[in-house]
């Protein structure tokens, strides 16, 4: 603050102090002026003059200390009463002519229309397949499962033989296979024969990850293998010639089918916990626990084998294939008979797109592969 300004302020204060209006006269003048103030601007001015920080009422209070001790109390009481009266009158007048205090304050700072759009920042979206793989691996990772991956182009050894799917057996027909035109080496050749089959194929499931992992890991272990898989079959609403799977495996001295049910129950309930609460009120689904049901099935690499269903929003949905790891698979991984006798565990495999379709009610899995932003941008 400059010198000049300070002087001016002091002068003004002195001037005002000279005028010592008796309180009732002040009130009379105020009421008269208020009656004349009929616009919000005028009301504003009146408020400043009488009720404001430097208004007349405040002047009265300021001047109290100049009065003799005995008079002070009475004057203060009188001034208070007048102020209360004036505030009431002012508010009444405001209601009549102007706007509310809060609104008025806002208006003072309202120099822009805040309802205009902000500077546009592009917003990207993670694809549902990525999101589901991340979510699924996060859940398993939180339970101590390793996350491992394998090649898309596989050898028949890892895709079939090592998994106890014999050549020249109809069970191999369960997996319609894309073959590469040219044979070739695939990283990490298997331990047993079939060296003469150097053909290459596009993996039909993520299960090759089982033997690949076990070749370098000894039990106890738990792991999942997310990845893209391929089937030589025409695409329709629920089938793709390309899709994604999540493979899982847990092996130890005592890992049982009951443990598989336990792990999967936790998994499904965690995976779908948001949808249950989100739709709870709408679709009458309470936070009912998702239950897991097993039914007999057949896979050459598990014994017993299960078809896995989950109870979801009032129906049983088939979501996975699973079973207890077949001893032949341990053998192909290079475990000794002694080791195999001491271990047991479960393995499972399920479709990522299937989980997405269930969770987001997507009617056709091909929608996920056309790169259509009108679809992709729905999910954030």
């Amino acid at each position: 603050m400059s010198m000049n300004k300070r002087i001016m302020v002091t002068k003004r204060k002195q001037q005002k102090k000279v005028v010592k209006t008796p309180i009732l006269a002040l009130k009379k003048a105020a009421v008269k002026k208020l009656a004349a103030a009929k616009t919000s601007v005028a009301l504003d001015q009146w408020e400043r003059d009488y009720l404001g920080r430097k208004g007349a009422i405040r002047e009265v209070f300021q001047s109290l200390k100049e009065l003799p001790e005995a008079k002070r109390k009475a004057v203060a009481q009188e001034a208070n009463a007048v102020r209360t009266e004036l505030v009431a009158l002012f508010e009444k007048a405001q209601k009549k002519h102007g706007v509310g205090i809060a609104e008025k304050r806002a208006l003072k700072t309202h120099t822009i229309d805040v309802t205009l759009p902000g500077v546009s920042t592009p917003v990207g979206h993670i694809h549902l397949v990525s999101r589901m793989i991340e979510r699924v691996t996060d859940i398993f990772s939180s339970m101590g499962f390793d996350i491992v991956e394998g090649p898309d182009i596989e050898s028949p050894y890892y895709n079939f033989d090592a998994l106890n799917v014999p050549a020249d057996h109809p069970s191999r027909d369960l997996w319609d296979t894309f073959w590469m035109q040219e044979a070739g080496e695939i990283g990490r050749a298997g331990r047993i024969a079939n060296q003469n089959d150097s053909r290459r194929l596009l993996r039909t499931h993520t299960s090759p990850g089982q033997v690949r992992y076990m070749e370098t890991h000894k039990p106890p272990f738990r792991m999942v293998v997310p990845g893209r898989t391929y089937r030589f079959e025409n695409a329709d609403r629920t089938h793709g010639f390309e899709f994604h799977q999540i493979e899982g495996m847990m092996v130890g001295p005592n890992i049982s089918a009951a443990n598989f049910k336990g792990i999967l129950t936790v998994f499904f309930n965690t995976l779908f916990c948001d949808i249950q609460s989100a739709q709870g009120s709408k679709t009458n689904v309470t936070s009912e626990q998702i239950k897991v049901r097993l039914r007999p099935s057949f896979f050459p690499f598990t014994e017993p084998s299960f078809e896995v269903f989950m109870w979801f929003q009032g129906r049983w949905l088939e979501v996975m294939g699973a079973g207890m790891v077949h001893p032949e698979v341990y053998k192909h991984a290079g475990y000794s008979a002694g080791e195999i006798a001491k271990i047991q565990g479960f393995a499972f495999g399920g479709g990522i797109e299937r989980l997405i379709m269930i969770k987001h009610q997507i009617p056709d899995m091909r929608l996920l592969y056309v790169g259509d932003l009108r679809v992709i941008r729905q999910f954030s």
Partner: protein
Amino acid sequence: MRFSYNWLKEYLAYAVSPQDVADILAMHSFEIETIEKVGDDTVLDINVLPNRAPDCYSHQGIAREVNAAIDANQTVYPFAPAQTYRQPFNKADSAQGTSTSPRIKVTIENVTDCPRYACQVVEQVVVTKSPTWLQNRLRALGLEAINNIVDITNYVMLDVGNPIHAFDLALLKDTKGSEPTHEGDDHAHIIVRRAKANEKITGLDGITYTLQPTHLVIATPKKPLAIAGIKGGVGSGISDNTTSIVLEAAHFDRKLIYTTSRAIKLKTDASTRFSAGVSQYLPSIALARAVELLRTVCGDTIRSLPVVDQWPGMQDAKTQQTTMRLDRAKPGKLLGIAVPEERITDILGALGCKVTDAEQGGSQALTIQPPFWRLDLTRDVDLVEEIGRMIGYEAIPATLPLVVVQTPEPNPAFTFRNELRRSLVNRGFDEIYSYTLVNRDDVELTTTDESIISRLALQNTLSHRHAYVRHSVLPCLLRAIAENQKQCDRFQLCEIGKIFEQERWSLGLAWFDSEATTSQKVTDGSYIHRAPAFFALRGAIDAMCANFGITDVRYESVGDKKQAAQSWFDQGVVAQIVIAGRPAGIIAQPNKATMQHYDIAGNAGGLNNQGTTAVAELDVAVLQDASMRVALYKEPPVFPPTKRDIAIEVDNSVPSQSLIDTMTTAGGTIVESISLFDYYEGTKVGAGKKSVAYHIVYRDRSRTLTDAEVNKAHRAIEQELRDMYNAVIR
């Protein structure tokens, strides 16, 4: 596979409805696809699991399964016993016929190919239409009714599970001329042998098949009669004139039938069963059932001769039917529920297994001998499955395992891709997924090397659109741009996916802005207008790299002009991306031909790339390697910087990066940073020239620089620019 309820009922030991049958099977054995009323019958479509084909591709097999499930769970299934029913076959027919008969002689050339061949001559048959009940049963299951003999062979297959075939005896005798043969003249001689090279046979379906020595045939000494285990031939089939028949019930090598069926692309009810495997004990059971039905259908006038049964594989079959040891504790331990021993013996007994104590003296193991029809029970875990499913998996509780705490093994590549994705999405990229399988044009966009292309090719394809694994993600992005530009004026896309031939993860980026306009005019440093999408995408890549602490990112011109000339990109707007000295990818504006091929419109609806579109592809592993893992603290500079600007007029062909590199070297260690702040091309400078201006920040981290020092360095920079680029310093 379709099964008739009325048929099953003949063998069901309990009074159960079709729905009961379906529920019991669904719980313990197989999924039920449909239950359908057909006339007065109900047809169940049962999804028999592949390992159960040997015993359950038959009505007796399914009935046996239902009976066993009820027997094993009497308290759960309180069904009343059936009034009348036939016991499904439960013991092997031990009777073996003579190897020859007055009418027929059998020779098996290779025991491995055909471990058992049983046949039986039946005389005085009258070929006619089957009775209605027989026709109805076959039709309900989707088979055609042909005549009584053929219908009976089909019926026996569906009843017992072993395919059988009927020949016309008269047509098996290799007599020449038209004279009718006299009965008993000579033997019909049946030979089971490999086909000759290119041997032809016309099947009952009218199609001629060319066979090879890897295939098996049933033949007379002169001609092939049938493709063994797959299809009968036309020359020996049953006709209205047939009076004597030969019923064949054989066992063929599973693999041989499977590979033959695939090779000649002919899958029949018979080949399906033989391919999956059938018990060697079945042929005599099937023959007996066939003769029984013939009597029912044709009457007692028929005359059946003794069975000719060649069973050289009998010993093998018996040894294959091994006994197994099952640890009493194993079922409970594997399933995770308590399974008392009597439950084990009850269930396995109900399934037809013989259960005995393994050894005397407190052994933990039981000895189990599976029934001969269960080829799938070969080891203890198979028995655990039987016990588990018969108890019902519903009984297994959900129990979390007790394990030692173990943190997961880190997977840096997987984690990095997730972070990369987030980084891009956070700066406005929408992530897409495309098919890995692409077409030939897509492959040729980025490689013309035939040896690579042939390694990308699939052998079997669904469509020419998906005949190769992709060599690059760029074609996928270009296609997505074309798709989305119809609805969307501006967007940024990313895809993280595998590319081949050397399988690796690739990051594809696309920038599209239909309103971006290219301008030759460069004013106020806005060279951006020369290629708006390119510079926008480059900025995004730089920001992404910075996000991962990757600072050493350089954009270099693509060297090989000849190669560049036949490429997909605009030769003037392309750069190789080099990260930490390693080639990391490419960024470019697609050229006109590429835009046309992928049907991407530029601005004003034309097919010309007016700077609307830029794409890039980066090797994810190179990015990951360069990404800074652990940053170590550096003390922020405490001594002040000295800033100097430099304005240079230089030949247009000199890249900015070269100027910066030169200045950095010439200025010495006190040059902290150099950044472009002005760029100009146009009339104010000469033709082929440009004017560029940079901020140079000088600093020494250990002391305050003197003016003299800075001046010296700055002059050195100016001099070097003049010397190297003939630059004019303004």
